[in-house]
């Protein structure tokens, strides 16, 4: 009988597990512990509205929400010393016995060495620090043309003196969108005024007490006041790194579950396990975990989905493909859909750019 559920991590995934347990009538103890000083918040807003300054906070729920549902929310409280055999752990140093442990600790941003002025964008504190560091005279260099880098560049462009993006690959978002769509995006970034340096790595970030320049691997020097490093994130948990779980979120050890960015989740429809850092996956997996804790079966296996707002484009991506046979483009550079298909023409993944009405259709096609 499950009486105490300990949720390590107070982001979307962890907090949604707690809410979903209560929605399903669970009346035992729920402790949600996160090491950040904040109540659960929305991460997608960080590189968008919060960084732009058009939104002051990004909290998922009103302050009273957690206590109203008898969810014990512990902030600045890391879960450690997990003993999965005895089912014990510590929360902020205090021992706690659990019947079910949910690992939803997410990931931490990878960064680069350098003087003060090197930022990452992963947490609410990261976002406010970066927002406050950039003014009309600030020269910004963004390292990495992935989604965080591209959104950050897009948001900071109207606020900063200049924005440069340095990307070692030949196009932005190359691994996900491929070279053709990547070239369309590159033209878009440049048309908006970004100095986009493709095929270039960072040699070092230099300066005195503060950042003064970024040196690239071709010897060129980019003057910089603020550097934003967007080169991915590393899953982190009290059990080490990422956790492998089945389609219900169950780890190999009984009583241990995982969801969200930290979880390598089994996807029967793809025939493989996949770790993604998407809002919809965190949300959907959390429900599956809550069900599994209560002995119900609600496996999560929906096509991965994420969206990104950048340079006046809304990118919506569904499905998952590491390689494809062909890319079928429909539309023009301002609004198009790219279909990534296999040799038989079957859809593997798709990108809709300013074509929201295609998304539900593509989702259905992928689910079929």
């Amino acid at each position, binding site marked *: 009988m499950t009486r105490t559920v300990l949720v390590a991590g107070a982001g979307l995934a962890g907090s949604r597990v707690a809410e979903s347990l209560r929605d399903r009538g669970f009346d035992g103890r729920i402790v949600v512990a996160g090491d950040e000083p904040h109540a659960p918040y929305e991460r997608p807003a960080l590189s968008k509205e919060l960084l732009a300054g058009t939104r002051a906070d990004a909290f998922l729920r009103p302050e009273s929400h957690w206590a109203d549902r008898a969810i014990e929310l512990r902030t600045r409280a890391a879960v450690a010393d997990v003993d999965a055999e005895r089912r014990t752990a510590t929360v902020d140093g205090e021992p706690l016995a659990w019947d079910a442990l949910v690992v939803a600790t997410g990931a931490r941003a990878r960064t680069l060495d350098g003087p003060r002025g090197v930022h990452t964008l992963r947490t609410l504190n990261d976002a406010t620090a970066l927002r406050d560091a950039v003014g009309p005279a600030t020269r910004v260099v963004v390292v990495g043309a992935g989604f965080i880098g591209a959104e950050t560049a897009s948001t900071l462009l109207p606020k900063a003196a200049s924005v440069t993006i340095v990307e070692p690959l030949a196009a932005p978002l190359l691994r996900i969108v491929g070279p053709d769509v990547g070239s369309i995006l590159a033209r878009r970034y440049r048309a908006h005024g970004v100095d986009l340096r493709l095929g270039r790595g960072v040699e070092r970030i230099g300066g005195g007490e503060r950042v003064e320049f970024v040196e690239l691997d071709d010897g060129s020097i980019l003057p910089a006041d603020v550097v934003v490093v967007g080169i991915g994130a590393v899953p982190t948990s009290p059990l080490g790194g990422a956790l492998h779980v089945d389609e219900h979120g169950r780890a190999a050890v009984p009583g241990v579950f995982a969801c969200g960015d930290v979880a390598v989740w089994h996807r029967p429809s793809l025939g493989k396990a996949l770790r993604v850092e998407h809002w919809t996956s965190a*949300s959907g997996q959390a429900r599956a975990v809550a069900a599994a804790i209560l002995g119900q079966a609600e496996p999560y296996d929906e096509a991965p*989905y994420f969206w990104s707002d950048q340079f006046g484009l809304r990118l919506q991506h569904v499905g998952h493909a590491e390689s494809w046979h062909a890319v079928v483009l429909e539309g023009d550079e301002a609004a198009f859909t790219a279909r990534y298909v296999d040799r038989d023409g079957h859809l593997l993944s798709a990108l809709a750019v300013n074509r*929201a*009405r295609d998304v*539900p259709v593509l989702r259905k096609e992928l689910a079929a």
Partner: protein
Amino acid sequence: MPLYRVSIDRSLCSGFGACVDASPDVFRLDGSGIALATVAETADPRVLDAADACPMGAIVVEEVAAA
């Protein structure tokens, strides 16, 4: 039985369609792919799932006194 008042911020809607999956009697996508609530109030508790499933947080569901 509780009654739920449903509102959609259509400027936020991304047309993902999760609301239609969760609660097909209440939500549909219009010609431009943006979500509409077909009723203002409903007893269907699945509208709560629809609000939770919306990646844009565009759906607000309030519980109102039963009629």
